[in-house]
């Protein structure tokens, strides 16, 4: 495992009190694999990734848990040391990581000289190499970010992230803002790079079809916790947690025969409140009294390290069959 996250807890201090944005999340990234961290807004996926990089916003702090990179435990200060050289970041909107007043080439060179200690000449050569790697013409190194299209900016952000040859890439919704054809081009580039450079990658996304296309493993988050994880094929084809089942039903599928999308009624809980029991129980069609009383730990299910945090996991096959019927999700 290149990255291990155990029982991570991140708290934000807000006017309304403490918000437990990540509340006991555990997952691991195997060497050379792409892991999709998937969930809806507010589930804690972005916060978890920011914590791994040590760049939480000012009111956020690590309130517990352990993060280990290549077997070495890293605290908040140590994490910052790893940034760029070992762990690099690709944001959703590359405009946020590119400065509009400098040329793109200069910004990449700066990472190489200031953080990588390279000479100006070496940095220039490496910048050309990096642009070539992500499919950009080196003639565009002298351009400003605004002269780039959305897809080109995203490629430039990937080039910059790869500058110092990190082994782990954290990408936060890197293709969400892009048009579908450009999105596909960037995803193909990411996969190609991951294979050629033997990168490990965490891909934060709300889009399970992006996970299905790109990722080897998936970690599903809900309300600050991991509810299910395992190999993508296994989790999407045979989800064990009712939230994953619901997400699958609600997600548009260009090729499916179903002509209806099934919503999950209600919304996620307020993470500023004290929460007892399973957090999905209020929306879950299969919830029983015991689900409201106590949580379920993420436990190994049948095979292939497929894990689910559901009290009724031993009935997962029956629940999955019932979940296929839209009537199951009808609000009473």
């Amino acid at each position: 495992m290149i990255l291990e996250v155990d029982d991570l807890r991140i708290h934000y201090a807000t006017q309304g009190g403490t918000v437990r944005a990540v509340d006991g999340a555990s997952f691991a990234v195997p060497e050379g694999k792409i892991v999709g961290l998937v969930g809806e807004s507010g589930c804690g996926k972005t916060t978890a990734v920011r914590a791994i990089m040590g760049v939480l916003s000012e009111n956020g702090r690590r309130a517990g848990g352990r993060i280990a990179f290549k077997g070495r435990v890293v605290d908040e200060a140590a994490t910052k040391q790893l940034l760029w050289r070992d762990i690099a970041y690709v944001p959703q909107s590359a405009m946020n990581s590119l400065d509009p007043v400098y040329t793109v080439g200069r910004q990449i060179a700066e990472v190489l000289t200031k953080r990588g200690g390279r000479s100006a000449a070496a940095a220039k050569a490496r910048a050309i190499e990096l642009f070539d790697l992500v499919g950009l013409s080196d003639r565009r190194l002298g351009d400003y970010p605004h002269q780039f299209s959305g897809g080109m900016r995203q490629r430039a952000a990937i080039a910059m992230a790869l500058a110092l040859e990190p082994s782990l890439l954290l990408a936060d919704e890197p293709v969400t803002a892009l048009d579908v054809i450009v999105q596909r081009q960037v995803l193909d580039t990411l996969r190609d790079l991951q294979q050629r450079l033997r990168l490990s990658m965490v891909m934060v996304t709300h889009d399970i079809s992006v996970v299905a296309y790109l990722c080897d493993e998936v970690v599903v988050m809900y309300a600050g916790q991991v509810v299910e994880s395992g190999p993508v094929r296994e989790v999407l084809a045979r989800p064990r947690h009712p939230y994953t089942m619901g997400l699958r039903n609600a997600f548009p599928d260009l090729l499916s025969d179903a002509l209806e999308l099934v919503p999950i009624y209600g919304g996620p809980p307020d993470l500023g409140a004290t929460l007892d029991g399973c957090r999905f129980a209020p929306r879950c069609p299969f919830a029983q009294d015991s689900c409201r009383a106590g949580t379920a730990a993420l436990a190994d299910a049948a095979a292939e390290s497929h894990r689910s945090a559901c009290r009724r996991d031993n009935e997962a096959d029956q629940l999955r069959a019932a979940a296929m019927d839209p009537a199951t999700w009808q609000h009473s």
Partner: protein
Amino acid sequence: MAALVELRDVSKHFPVARTLGELARGQHPVVRALDGVSFDIGAGDAVAIVGESGCGKTTLGRLMLKLAEPTGGSISFEGGELARLSGDKLKVFRRQAQLVFQNPFDSLNPRFTIYRAVAEPLRNAGVPTRQHAERVADAFRRVHLPDLERYLDRYPHQLSGGQLQRVVLARALVLEPRFLVADEPVSMLDVSVRAGILALMREVREAMGLTAVYISHDLALVRYLCERTIVMYLGGVVEDGPTDEIVRRPRHPYTRALVAAVPVPDPDQPRAPLPIHGNVPDAREPPSGCSFRDRCPHAMPRCAAEKPLLRVTGKGHYTACHLDL
């Protein structure tokens, strides 16, 4: 059924900043946001307009609601040309045609209560105040926001995204329009909530007999809303047909690329490699002839010389391509 909305050779050209050379030569460069768009929308139909950013779909929606004027061609609503509408006729049109905005978080005034937000179109249309409460209540019932009293005095920030989108829809429906244009109506919503809003839009449309245009970049999503889909590329319509056909047997090489690019949530469905390369060209300098030809794997000399027009390529299916489809 008779057409409710008719577009004939509609163009919208935006002037752009001129270079010194262009200034000196007296040239007036334009971006052709739309160029020669013609189609009809039947009363009661739900039509999707899909395409990538910059294809002109949002501009087209604005023109159909007379929120902007075309620079060429004509748009009619119930046989009356929009450009000629004025006075009372324009007021009637404004009541009958409504827009549902993309982002519910931005489209409601944060200082207005929910009641005021939904009642505002009534006030603007001159509906007597004594009718407002009942009309607002009707609109709320239509969008399934129960416990009316719970919401009316609240402010937008106190509602969830899904509730807000219902409020936005209620506001669009409060004047009981006949024609609705929704621009990316669910793109800001979470997956689990989005499905409910889509089902609601379908239900409302059927219940009220509305004619609706859904503008979206997401082909996978419009499948659940519309039986007909219009695909746009660089300001023009490239394909127009039954959604199911467009998805399962796309004719135009651009539509084929679009369909191939859409990711699906099933890892066991193999996705074909993307059949095209490159990016959408600059709308200031589109290629001659077919605007897609510089990226098209099947381009031939004729494509540069002659702009392909929409022609019949199936039942209710039209494609603008010179290929033998």
